[in-house]
């Protein structure tokens, strides 16, 4: 019985994980369409793109990149922890990931308000419409990820996870890595080489 229950649980885990991956690929195509728009606008309005992108704060963008990379580390460690039954470590790493995600959004808040106070809006130019839409959509994804991570943390604190029951953590972590992946491409394309 124990043996059969283990195999069924493993199968459910693998199936759920597959579902998450399919969702992630749909997200990749979503952002992929926006990257295609970026590519088109960049080829058509090259000088304007270059001139406008210089107004972006590269330092803040770089800091945000590092923040997200650190958050990917912590969420990956959270999964590694629960795989080994280390509930405390799971909780700490989930909390750190959430903290770093909040730092990212706070930075974005400063960036956006600085732009708005300089009269720079999505309607200002095609570069800035691309910039605001892509980073805005990405920011919304970060927010959604924080909600999921928050839920995972609450469940973790209540002791709901174990080495044979942590698919919710794994799925949330996979989503969070995707959010980091999108930013890995957004940062150079918007801030560095536009």
């Amino acid at each position: 019985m124990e043996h059969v229950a283990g195999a069924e649980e493993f199968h459910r885990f693998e199936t759920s994980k597959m579902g998450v991956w399919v969702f992630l690929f749909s997200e990749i195509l979503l952002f992929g369409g926006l990257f295609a728009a970026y590519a088109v606008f960049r080829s058509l309005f090259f000088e304007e793109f270059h001139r406008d992108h210089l107004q972006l704060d590269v330092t803040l963008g770089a800091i945000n990149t590092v923040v997200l990379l650190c958050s990917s580390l912590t969420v990956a460690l959270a999964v590694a922890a629960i795989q080994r039954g280390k509930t405390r470590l799971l909780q700490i790493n989930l909390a750190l990931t959430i903290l770093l995600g909040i730092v990212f959004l706070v930075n974005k808040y400063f960036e956006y308000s600085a732009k708005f106070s300089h009269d720079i809006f999505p309607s200002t130019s095609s570069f800035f419409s691309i910039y605001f839409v892509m980073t805005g959509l990405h920011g919304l994804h970060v927010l959604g990820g924080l909600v999921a991570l928050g839920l995972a943390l609450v469940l973790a604190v209540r002791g709901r996870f174990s080495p044979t029951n942590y698919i919710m953590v794994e799925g949330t972590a996979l989503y969070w890595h995707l959010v980091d992946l999108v930013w890995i491409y957004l940062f150079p394309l918007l801030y560095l080489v536009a």
Partner: protein
Amino acid sequence: MADPASGHSTQPYWIYPAVWGTLIVLTVLTVLVAGVDLGGWNVPMAIAIATVKAALVALFFMHLRFEGRWVWGFAVFSVFLLFPLIILTVTDALLKLAR
């Protein structure tokens, strides 16, 4: 690599900080390379470095290296859908809109 109790593949802890360190170094590299004028090669270089970073995150953080042919099949499919999508759209735009 598979944990005997649960059957899930685990990686030793040190892998994670090691990959993270590599990602940080590659980020620094991205910024430095962007500061050098490479003519038309700046964008391909930026994308190339970003792709290495993405591969590291996918393989090690997302455990893609342990996944079976279904996940890999979807991964390859979406990437091979993405590249023509972007390239053909840009080509189309340049041919039709840039008069």
